[in-house]
Structure formats: C-alpha cells, structure tokens
C-alpha cells in the first residue's frame, strides 16, 4: 500500500450522484440504455468524484459507489440466483405482514425506491462485484484505493427470504456458506488487483443488539420475526472472519452504523457500541469504521489492537462541523488510541441509497474538507 500520512482521511463509501447519473441508473433499470451507455455516464461521474477527493485532500479514495443503486442491492446484477424484488413484491410473500408494514413506516422512503436482492436459486458470481470498479479507479488515480463490499452477514440476512429462497437453500446458514464463498473469491480478486483497503459493511449488527431481535429495516425483512441475537451474532462473527481471511495482509475494515436512510434522526437506531464490544474484539478485522459524530453512538470505546476509523461528521445534517470540533473529537480518541491507529471519516456514506441521498455534494464536500483541515493541523502538531 502507498504510504498513508498520520490520521488518514477517507469516506465511508457513497457520494451523492448527479441528476444525470440518477437518470442513467433509472434508464438502465428500465432497459432503455445498455451497459455501454450507462458506463459512459458512470465513468464520468466516478472521475468527478475522484478528482474532488484528490482536490479536497482525501488520502484513501474510492469511487463514491457511483455505479451502485445502493450499498448492497447492486449485487443482484452481479450474481446468478439473485433477483431484485421490490418491497411491494416482498409484502405479497412475507408471512409477517404486520411487522413488515412497521418496517416500511420506519423507513421514511417510498417502497418502490428500494429493492431487495433476494436469493431465488443457487448463487454464484456471474461477474465480479467490485473488481471492475477498482480497476477503473486505479487507472485514474495514484492514491491508495478503498473498496466497499456488503458484508457476508448482511448479504445473507438480506437475500434469505424464506418463501423465495427455500427451494435453493433450506436455511439461511446454508445460503451463508455460498455467500462466504462468493465474497472470498471477490476479495482474492481485489487483492490480486492491488486494492489497498477492503471495507465490509455490516449495518445489521446494530439491529441485532438494539432491537432485541425485532429488526426494523428491510435488510432483515424476511426475518422480521424475533431472532435470537446471540446466535445471530455468532453467525456474523464466523462469516466475517472467514471472509476476512481471504484478504491476507491487505488492510481490512468493518463499517457498522445505526442506519443512514433518513435525515430524521429519531427514525435511526440509538445506543453505544458496548453491546457489540465482545463481538468486535473477536473479529480479525484490522479497522473498525464507526460512527461517533452523534450522541446516538454513545461514548468512545477502546478496541484493543485495532485501528479506528473515527466518524467525525454527521453525513445527514446541513451544518458543517468546524475543524475545531473535529480536532476535539480526534483528541478525545487519542486518549484511547495511538495516533497511528486513527483514521478519519464521516459517520457513514452521503448517499447510501442513490435515489435518496442524505446530503448534497456541496455539503459533503465542505464536511470532508473540514476533516482534512483538522487532520492536517494535527499532523503538524503530532
């Protein structure tokens, strides 16, 4: 990996898409344009995001997930045995419709705007999940590159819709085997292509501990009825560690947040990372990419031997955090972490769902610029 400075700055992944790109995504979804035409628009958008990160001074860049409709359902286009199912379609087949309706109410988004990648047959990679994205970025930047992938537990939970999946996989544990295999293959390919940082996104872990098994998001819609959080967390640890092993010496991260689908903070989960600490301690991941910019995240915790990707700005507000505020957050973290183990980032993506960004690109730019400013000041004094 290219050398990183102290307090490396990165984003968690998604960046707001332009109207042109959103329209291209829609046209592609409707079959009105092909891959080539879509790539023409998406390539230009990725280049814009790359140049912006370079201009701001981001140390570890990514493609802003510009080609993806959201952080995990894009896999439907890359895997065989997976079909995008609208929430309306899922409502038809889900047994516990009342629980599902509660989830829809929590979401604060139109049901049509979200599709769930649902397993409907044996899964395998038809094409790489993110290797093409990596290749394109590496061709256009000399900076270290981060690639984000949905984590194996999230993928399993999202894709296992009992009524649609059981013909291919009797249990979600059976499906998890193939999910892990797919991610292992992908990660090995990313490593071979020279990726610098692989981040797995596992937002569902907070669901398990903060909702006592009564999940609130579509990502767990199929399993909306009560699950045993302890068993689920065990499954998550096993899967994540298995997949991480494929990364070898490449730096890995695990991003865990409490939801990023709305600017209405009251609809998002709340609570510190303490209930997950024992789980995090057992993970072989090198870095935990965590949100800490809102009170909902609770107090800072020390995770022995791990790097911390410290969330220092809230991606969902118009107010841009000052460099002073950000420096104060970093200085607090320095009481628990040595400087060389601190990375800086926003709490989450700025547009987790492409059609429902939580902020405008201009605000996102100002926020990341403030992080870079704070990091540079601290580097000078470190």
């Amino acid at each position, binding site marked *: 990996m290219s050398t990183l400075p102290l307090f490396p700055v990165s984003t968690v992944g998604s960046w707001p898409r332009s109207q042109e790109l*959103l329209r291209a*995504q829609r*046209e592609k979804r409707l079959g009105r344009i092909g891959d080539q035409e879509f790539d023409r628009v998406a390539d230009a958008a990725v280049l814009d995001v790359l140049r912006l990160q370079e201009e701001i001074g981001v140390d570890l860049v990514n493609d802003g997930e510009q080609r993806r409709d959201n952080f995990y359902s894009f896999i439907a286009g890359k895997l065989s045995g997976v079909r995008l199912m609208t929430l309306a379609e899922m409502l038809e087949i889900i047994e516990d419709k*009342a629980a599902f309706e509660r989830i*829809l109410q929590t979401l604060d988004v*139109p*049901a*049509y*705007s979200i599709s769930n990648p649902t397993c409907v047959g044996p899964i395998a990679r038809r094409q790489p999940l993110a290797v093409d994205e990596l290749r394109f970025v590496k061709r256009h930047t000399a900076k270290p590159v981060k690639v984000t992938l949905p984590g194996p537990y999230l993928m399993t939970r999202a894709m296992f819709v009992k009524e649609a999946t059981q013909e291919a996989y009797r249990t979600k544990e059976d499906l998890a085997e193939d999910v892990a295999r797919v991610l292992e293959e992908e990660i090995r390919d990313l490593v071979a292509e020279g990726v610098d940082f692989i981040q797995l996104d596992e937002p569902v872990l907070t669901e398990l501990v903060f909702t006592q098994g009564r999940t609130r998001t579509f990502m767990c819609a199929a399993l909306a009825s009560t699950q045993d959080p302890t068993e689920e967390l065990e499954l998550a640890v096993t899967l994540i560690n298995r997949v991480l092993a494929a990364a070898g010496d490449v730096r890995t991260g695990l991003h865990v947040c409490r939801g990023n689908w709305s600017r209405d903070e009251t609809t998002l989960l709340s609570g510190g990372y303490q209930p997950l600490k024992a789980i995090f301690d057992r993970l072989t991941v090198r870095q935990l990419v965590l949100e800490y910019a809102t009170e909902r995240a609770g107090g800072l915790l020390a995770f022995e031997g791990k790097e911390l990707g410290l969330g220092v700005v809230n991606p969902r507000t118009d107010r841009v955090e000052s460099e002073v505020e950000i420096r104060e957050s970093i200085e607090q973290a320095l009481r628990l972490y040595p400087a060389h183990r601190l990375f800086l980032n926003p709490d989450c993506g700025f547009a987790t769902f492409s*059609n429902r960004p939580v902020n405008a690109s201009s605000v996102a730019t100002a926020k990341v610029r403030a992080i870079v400013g704070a990091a540079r000041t601290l580097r000078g004094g470190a």
Partner: protein
Amino acid sequence: MVARKNLFEVGAPFDFDEEADHVTALEYCLGALGAELVGGVKRRAESRRMDVEHVEAVVHGELNDSLAAIGVVGAKGHPGIERISVSVYVSSGETEAELERLWREVLETSPLLRTLQVATRVEVTFQVAL
C-alpha cells in the same frame, strides 16, 4: 359492501389489533384518500403521455381521542380524525416543474381530499424520488 358491480368486505369500524383479518372502515377511508391521489397522478400522467414509472402514497391518520372512539366513559376528546398526513412519492423522467404542475391539478380536483380538508387537518406532501 357493494359498489356498482363490485363487492368488497369491510371489517370493524376501526381496530387496534394488528392481527385483525379485515381492513377496517377507518383504514378504507385513509386508503381511499391515498388511492385517490395516486390514481389522480397516474390518470393525468397517462392522459398527457408523461413518463411516470411509480407513484406511491403513505397515509397516516390520528384520532383525536381513541378512548372516546371505543366509548370509554370520561374520555376527554372526540372520536373524530384529528390529523391526516399523506406523502405522495413519484418516480419519473419528467422535470420537477412539470410534475409539480400535474400535482397541483390533482390536488384541486380530488373530491375526497377536498372534503376531508374541510373537516380536519390534512397535511399533503409531494416528492419526486427517482
């Protein structure tokens, strides 16, 4: 219920049991409001050959005093609907200005909405969400 040549079943006037088998009269009322607005957008978009992919409404209703509705002695309020909120989402390739124009026409010509607006507080929002 029979309406012209169509037959449909209605459950209790209202029901707080999530497992209740039938749609209540109150839910039909709120659902009808959402359907009126969604149908209004679709119909007008079709007649103008506008490119509208999805239309969806989320409707919430709130009683003034649910205790009054179930007949609790001493309930302080009344059983009527205190507030209705409707969010209508549309996915379309048209410009926002064109969609706003269409939406204003829908609002002006929706019988149920206009009636309910006289009787109670109705908050309606319209969002373009690709």
